[in-house]
């Protein structure tokens, strides 16, 4: 609560607009909401509710288990523009380790408030086309490093990660000139390993609900 001003400021800098029909991102893409009760913050289905969007473009939480779905858009630096989606995916997962989940792609991490250190590993991966955009899918496991000292098999979460390197752009402004630069879109479904399989289908629905612009 002490940080309510900061939270309000960050919330005001959100990357999009929620309507009864869709989420419209300032990065050019949109996500269809589906036939749900928007007044109750439902999204995709009655099981998913729009959660705090601070740090995310869109974040949904499941009403019955710990599952979360989120979309983040990260600005791509010049040196990453020609990098294959598979490599971007591995770099992203690597950057998740050591800090909290919300990380910048360039490796700069936001310090964990609770000093939790994560370990991540890619279990499986596959190239993909999502909305005709080049992408890469990965299944990852996440462990709390401190918990591994008690149980080497302990996993705090499993996540499906879709890294989309498509028609998603951010606007770089320098004075009175600007240009549109490619951005990296990250779509994640994360849940406790025990309930993970329950909502994999919803992750697929979320990916199918994303609409991309034709170009910059």
């Amino acid at each position: 609560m002490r940080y309510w001003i900061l939270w309000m400021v960050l919330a005001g800098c959100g990357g999009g607009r929620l309507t009864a029909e869709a989420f419209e991102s300032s990065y050019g893409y949109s996500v269809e909401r589906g036939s749900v009760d928007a007044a109750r913050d439902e999204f995709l289905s009655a099981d998913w509710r729009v959660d705090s969007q601070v740090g995310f473009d869109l974040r949904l939480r499941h009403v019955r288990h710990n599952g979360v779905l989120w979309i983040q858009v990260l600005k791509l630096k010049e040196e990453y523009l020609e990098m294959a989606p598979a490599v971007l995916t591995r770099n992203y997962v690597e950057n998740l380790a050591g800090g909290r989940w919300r990380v910048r792609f360039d490796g700069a991490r936001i310090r964990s408030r609770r000093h939790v250190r994560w370990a991540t590993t890619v279990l499986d991966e596959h190239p993909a086309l999502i909305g005709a955009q080049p992408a890469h899918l990965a299944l990852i496991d996440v462990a709390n490093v401190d918990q591994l000292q008690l149980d080497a098999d302990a996993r705090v979460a499993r996540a499906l990660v879709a890294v989309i390197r498509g028609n998603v752009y951010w606007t770089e402004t320098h004075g009175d000139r600007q240009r549109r630069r490619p951005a990296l879109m990250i779509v994640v479904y994360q849940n406790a390993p025990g309930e993970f399989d329950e909502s994999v289908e919803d992750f697929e629905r979320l990916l199918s609900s994303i609409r991309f612009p034709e170009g910059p």
Partner: protein
Amino acid sequence: MVLAPLSVLAQGLVESARSLQQLGEHEAAVVVLQRALAESSAERGRILYRMAESELALGRSDAAAAHLREALALPDDEWVAAHTADVAALLARASGAAAASPSTEGPSEAAPHPGALPPSLVDRFGADTLPPLPGGTEWSPVYRVQAFLGAGLFAPDDDFGKKANALLVCGAELTGGLFSIFAFRVQARFGLTLLNVKQFSSWDPPGPYYRAHAYGDRRDLFVDLSLGLRANVGAGLFVGVGGRFGYRRIHFDDEAEYRPRGYDRSVEGDAIAGQIVRQAVVELGWRSDHIGFRIEGSAGRPRASLLGIVTIPIVTL
């Protein structure tokens, strides 16, 4: 069950690796087992399992999991068939699949091991080839129409006294990129003095009057236009120079007396005078896409002013 025989050299290598593992020399054991894999195609499952044991001990869980999956995928390996539970348990440990349930039937398409992407996801979105990665656009100018509000001090230098007064300004301006870091600014401004300053002035006006004096609340109104050139120096900061042209109306509302030349009779009423504004302007400021601040200094006629200005973009093209 009869296992496919290893070559003599491969058998020796596997036994050497086992000894090295017992001594904790896992790095050397991995090297020896790689050699054994190269020497013999028999019992690949067993060799891969031993290699995964050492890799796991070395903390290379990814490599261990990959070798164990390779072992499980071997079609006719009798050792793997006999030790599927052991291989799957080690794989679960390597890949973190707590829910691993080793199947004596081995892996199948319908029931992938716990560390695999869901088949429905791969079927729906998987692709073998990807289209080219999209690029961005080149730099292009941005034109903004913005409203501004400012306040500060101005020091007149005219026939009506030299007292400084507070000045409130507002208006609209157009900015746009020119080339490189440079941009232009066109501004239409309305200004008003804020303080009621009781002043007395006496002067010899031109025209038919030979003497006049005025006393009362003095008000100055500005309507002017300015043009400027800005340099955006980075991080939203900019500096600029320009010129301002316009009209200043000066008004005393209490009392004024004009005595026409050649007449004794006075004419009383409001005293109104005008002045052409000609000033050079310098500015220093910071701007984001949503708001801007700047300090603007000007000098000329009237003498000088120093203003703090807030700008809010209204339209961006």
